[in-house]
């Protein structure tokens, strides 16, 4: 099990006179001492609870529902027996067809029988589904609480506000990966849910792919052994945290997600971690500019988590600012910071480029997506470059010269949109 973390900081500590912005990347690795996790009853102070939340609204009728049922049934078969689970099927109402239960053979059979009988009908009111899931997760406050949500359509127009409220209530209670099947759902909507619930968003292009996708999600969820890990950031009096983002494996802006622990201390949620999991975080902190020769601690970051009943703090890392008149030192940009600045720019260019394209501003879209191709190419983000090539014709990747394709498959555009936040790490040399 994960019982410790280590951290490394990458930054150029040297600032020119008058400068006040400090950037640093912190690489965090979850470590394991080799001790095995206590075998605990899943619902008695520990263990795991995994929730399946699946759309059964009218639009799912046919192949999508058949595939989704098949995927849910397989997922239930694969659940380890020391894990608890529940199933919420959603339309205009939420149906908790299998309330929280330990994944025994009998419980699995019961759940599968109920899922088989379900028919598609009704609207898509996601707030109701999330509230039903929240009810289940409240049974297991100390378990690792994770879920998957699958839908194929947009949320009901009257559910905007209730969804916001439901998300506020669910935030911090459970994590949820979101999947959209087909092309009738809205990327922004699903991404907002996944981001709030510290999960991933992706498109499942064809119904028959739901099964393998669910399997991957379950595998990842079951690998997690430390839950509710917080990133704690101390900053000096008078400093402003400009942003705090997870930047690898995906870009997730945590800036507004903090809990103020003390006047100078904030905690950001990072969810659950698996053994050997590595993530990178980007901090930007504005400090009061010092005189040449001054050295200031601009930030101290650590991870806070609970082992048994005690709070542990690990991986303390220092972010420094040293003012110098030596330009050779202050002009250098740390290459890890530069890399992730580029990856954030890449994601932003794609988001804005696709937005420009959909409102018909082709000039703007060409410029932004061209820029994205250039950055993806230069930083070796092959996966994103490939997705971009489905949307634009690349004439010169190095220069970022592209032409928008006249015909773009909707699923290609959505895949680019959902996956644009996935980053590459800087190759070690």
């Amino acid at each position, binding site marked *: 099990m994960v019982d410790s973390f280590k951290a490394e900081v990458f930054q150029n500590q040297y600032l020119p006179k008058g400068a006040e912005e400090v950037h640093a990347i912190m690489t965090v690795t979850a470590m394991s001492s080799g001790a095995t996790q206590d075998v605990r009853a899943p619902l008695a102070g520990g263990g795991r609870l995994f929730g399946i939340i699946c759309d059964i609204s009218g639009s799912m009728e046919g192949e999508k529902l058949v595939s989704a049922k098949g995927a849910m049934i397989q997922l239930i078969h694969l659940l380890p027996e020391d894990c608890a689970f529940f199933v919420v099927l959603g339309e205009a109402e939420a149906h908790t067809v299998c309330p929280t239960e330990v994944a025994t053979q009998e419980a699995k059979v019961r759940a599968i029988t109920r899922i088989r009988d379900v028919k598609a009908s009704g609207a898509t009111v996601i707030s109701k589904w999330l509230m039903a899931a929240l009810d289940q997760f409240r049974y297991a406050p100390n378990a690792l609480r994770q879920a998957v949500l699958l839908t194929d359509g947009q949320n009901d127009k009257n559910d905007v506000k209730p969804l916001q409220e439901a998300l506020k209530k669910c935030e911090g209670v459970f994590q949820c990966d979101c999947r959209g099947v087909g092309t009738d759902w809205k990327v922004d909507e699903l991404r907002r849910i996944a981001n709030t619930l510290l999960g991933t968003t992706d498109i499942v292009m064809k119904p028959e792919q739901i099964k393998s996708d669910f399997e991957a999600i379950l595998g990842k969820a079951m690998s997690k052994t430390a839950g509710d890990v917080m990133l704690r950031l101390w900053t*000096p009096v008078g400093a402003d945290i400009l942003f705090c983002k997870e930047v690898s494996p995906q870009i997730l802006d945590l800036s507004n997600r903090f809990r103020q622990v003390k006047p100078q201390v904030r905690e950001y949620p990072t969810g659950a971690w698996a053994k050997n999991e590595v993530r990178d975080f980007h901090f930007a902190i504005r400090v009061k500019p010092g005189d040449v020769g001054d*050295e*200031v*601690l601009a930030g101290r970051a650590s991870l806070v988590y609970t082992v048994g009943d005690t709070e542990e703090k690990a991986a303390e890392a*220092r972010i*420094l600012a*040293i003012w110098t008149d030596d330009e050779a030192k202050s002009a250098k940009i740390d290459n890890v910071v530069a890399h992730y600045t580029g990856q954030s720019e890449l994601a932003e260019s794609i988001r804005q480029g696709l937005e420009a394209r959909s409102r018909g501003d082709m000039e703007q879209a060409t410029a932004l997506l061209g820029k994205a191709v250039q950055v993806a190419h230069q930083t070796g983000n092959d996966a994103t470059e490939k997705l971009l090539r489905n949307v634009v014709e690349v004439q010169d990747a190095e220069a970022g010269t592209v032409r928008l394709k006249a015909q773009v498959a909707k699923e290609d555009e959505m895949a680019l949109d959902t996956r644009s936040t996935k980053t590459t790490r800087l190759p070690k040399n």
Partner: protein
Amino acid sequence: MGGSVPAAACCTCGAPLSEMDSEGFCGGCGRRLKRPDSDHIEVELLSDFAGVSDRGLRHNRNEDRFAITQSSDAFAIVVCDGVSMSPDADEAAQAAVQATVETLNEGLAKLEKSTTDLLRAAIRNGSQAVTELGKRKSESPSTTLVAAILRQNRVTVGWIGDSRAYWLNGSGAVQLTRDHSWENSAAAQQAGAEAQRAANSHALMRWVGADAPDFEPEILEKELRPGGLLLLCSDGLWNYAPNSEDMAALIASASKPGATALAVSRELVEFARAKGGHDNITAVVLRHSASEGPANGG
């Protein structure tokens, strides 16, 4: 609470000193209030045997470390210069110095091995300690290492990297070590004089660390005529006196009449700082009297 004034306050923000963290940063404004002790290290074992290590002027911390020890008639020195391109170079230097000097201490007390074998074993243990450090990190902290044993009229020197040992007497200075630098490599010799002047001529070819090409130190043993001075130093010093002649002149000017080994070491460090102090500076001095070994008491 009400109206109580903290005993000592931070220089600018008024936060109490009790909130200073372990590295000396103020808990309020974050300003560095205290430099770490490693910024300037002085050790004096005898009036003829001492060393100084200093952060210099341009580096943010001192990543040089050294240790000196004595066991009956034997004197031993270890100097390590953490490679500043690697992470936690100070930890690497510290680990290497510590493991090497521990092995030397044990070995010199037991007298079971030849001096050469002991030095080899000690450097191997020093290397091992740095490798272990690298296993716990995603990158490999690394360091140079030079160690010497002086017993009666014989000096044994072992090294990996470009920290140096010199022997100085009335007839001048001899550089006992040969830097493991690109300049001295076979490739550079073939490339000729032009290449030797290239910017990377001082690039390290060998070092101690998990990513090091090998751990075998180069060992040299030399009989000495009694009476002289043994100096071990990091490149923070010798960069300002690269040739043996320069070094001989420097040591001569630092060795004022009656000066202790500590005073000489301080002078050498001060010289490098006055020249710009671009790197961390370490100088360890062992004076060998004309009769036998360092004179005690001075």
